[in-house]
């Protein structure tokens, strides 16, 4: 990625809350699941941004919010200078061409009744990107791009393995020549050897087409491998953001540290002697998040102030930010061995 590249996607204080209703006839809102609660991020052209966090932290909701698949509660999503929340339907439709998604489960995200050809031709025709006579050639080109032989175009999804299906899903996302792809756990349903193939394909495509990629995963070693920058989420908020090596090898936020130390390292000599930061309990519910810093009930560094004041995302070194008031105390402790 070129550091001077321009910003293609910008999120400003994005909030996505899901209301909770109670009562049958007289429904009234009794609360909200704050799935995404004030996320500010920018993605440059050609950049791979990794988004990590445990289940329920809001990473998938953030992906869906970026694509305007769920209504935003607050904040703005700006793609190429256009605010997706306020633009007209026609403009939104046109913007969708630049913003595509790859889903986690390739067994569920492809229509079982559509052949590969039909799956890949549909976006081309829906967006009137090419004439019917040219569709065949474009589909062949897409299949070659993701490493599938065009002779398989007449086959149905069930005839392919998981890895091949994920290739089809990637080809479908690429059909409209988007600027940004959001990939929500694209490799977590795949076996290790197949996972490596898909990771290679994604990073190759990003470089070749100067694509921006938002790569969501819970596997930190995978995210570190593919990303330029990493954002760590906890309970709807970004708690740390920075260059991939910095975040994983020298984590600043206590949550990132615990996350890094929890990942088993595939090397018995290191793994047996490694110190682990054990977090007590489970991540709290986003319906009723703890006051102050949402991480404080599980945080080994928590002080009284953490229970009341929400820590802002502040600078923690060049090009990185962390949302913690005790960064100095955390930095004084040795860093955990990273995977």
């Amino acid at each position, binding site marked *: 990625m070129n550091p001077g590249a321009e910003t293609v996607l910008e999120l400003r204080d994005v909030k996505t809350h899901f209301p909770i209703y109670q009562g049958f006839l007289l429904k009234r809102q009794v609360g909200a699941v704050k799935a995404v609660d004030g996320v500010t991020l920018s993605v440059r052209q050609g950049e791979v941004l990794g988004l990590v966090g*445990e289940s329920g932290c809001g990473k998938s909701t953030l992906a869906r919010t970026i694509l305007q698949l769920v209504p935003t509660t607050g904040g703005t999503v700006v793609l190429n200078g256009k605010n997706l929340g306020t633009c007209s339907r026609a403009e939104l439709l046109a913007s969708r061409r630049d913003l595509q998604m790859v889903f986690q489960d390739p067994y569920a995200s492809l229509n079982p009744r559509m052949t590969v050809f039909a799956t890949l031709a549909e976006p081309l025709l829906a967006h009137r990107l090419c004439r019917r006579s040219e569709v065949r050639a474009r589909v062949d080109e897409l299949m070659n791009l993701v490493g599938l032989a065009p002779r398989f175009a007449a086959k149905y999804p069930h005839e392919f393995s998981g890895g091949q299906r994920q290739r089809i899903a990637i080809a479908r996302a690429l059909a409209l020549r988007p600027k940004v792809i959001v990939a929500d756990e694209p490799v977590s349903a795949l076996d290790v*050897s197949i996972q490596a193939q898909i990771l290679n394909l994604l990073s190759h495509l990003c470089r070749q087409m100067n694509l921006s990629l938002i790569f969501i995963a819970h596997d930190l*070693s995978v995210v*570190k491998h593919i990303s330029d920058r990493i954002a760590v989420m906890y309970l709807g908020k970004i708690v740390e953001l920075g260059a991939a090596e910095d975040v994983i090898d020298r984590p600043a936020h206590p949550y990132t540290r615990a996350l890094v130390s*929890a990942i*088993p390292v595939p090397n*018995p000599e290191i*793994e047996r002697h490694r110190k682990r930061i054990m*977090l007590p309990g489970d991540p709290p519910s986003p319906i009723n998040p703890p006051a102050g810093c949402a991480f404080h009930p599980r945080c080994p560094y928590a002080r009284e102030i953490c229970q009341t004041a929400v820590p802002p995302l502040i600078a923690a070194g060049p090009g990185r930010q962390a949302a913690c008031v005790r960064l100095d105390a955390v930095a004084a402790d040795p860093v955990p061995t990273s995977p």
Partner: protein
Amino acid sequence: MPLLAVQDLRTYFHTRSGVYRAVDGVNFSVERGETLGIVGESGSGKSVTCYSIMGLVPQPPGRIESGSAVFDGTDLLRCPAREARAIRGKRVAMIFQDPMTSLNPYLRISEQVMEPLLIHERISRKAALARALAMLEAVGINDAAKRIHYYPHQFSGGMRQRVMIAMALITRPELLIADEPTTALDVTVQAQILDLIRQLQRELGMAVIFITHDLGVVSGLCDRVQVMYAGRIVETAATSTLFRAPRHPYTRALQQSIPALQPKGAELFTIPGMPPDLSKPIAGCAFAPRCGFVVDRCRTTVPGLIEAAPGQADACLRAQAGEL
């Protein structure tokens, strides 16, 4: 004598589209107190191996074609059902991957944790409840006295996995089979559960068979590892040996394709192709079509699992000939 000795186990599934050789001639043993890891990708037969031992293979379509699984002198595959039932669930226990579906949603946690005791031991309900409570406390459930009367949906994923572990360990088994018990959990919760299994193993002195696809989990937990591919064991070794000096090309390839073991940004090593279709007979080595070291004889001769050094065995003709 090993605690469990599995010999020539073959479990086939007879389906309309053919006979799937899910487990095809597996030999291994587990010593008392030992932790054995079984590693492999989906479809390698690692789960079916353990389901066969536990009598959990649906028959039909599954059928155990041959083999024995001798647990402390009793062949679990051939002995009368009554004898097998006295062992399974008491002396050999199992925990499963998905804590969301492996608890009965209609029964209180207390009923489910007590059940193995009520079945296997002559014990009053009151005494069983007291032991269930103690067990829940041992697996780290806070406020267990109150929560023992909850239903599964009132627990989080990590807590349900703890309940599963409590159920499995309440009869103080000598062997615990854990089938990917942490795959469905978040990493911070996974760390807690692995720690718990390690601690309880030390306290009870039980042997553990740990099935996983994550080489990271194996490296921290297991004394010995066996790698499975297409229904067969391709390599077995002490954990440190397997990571330091893998012999089989598949084991090497598996290690090389993990992002954590490669420099950042580099092209990841990939294994070309896909695992074989187990419904078709495989001539020679099952890994041959994807192997970078393949020679002609690999395609015709089935390699046996042969000991290369004490405690290390591999099923690769070329490694056995010292050519790799």
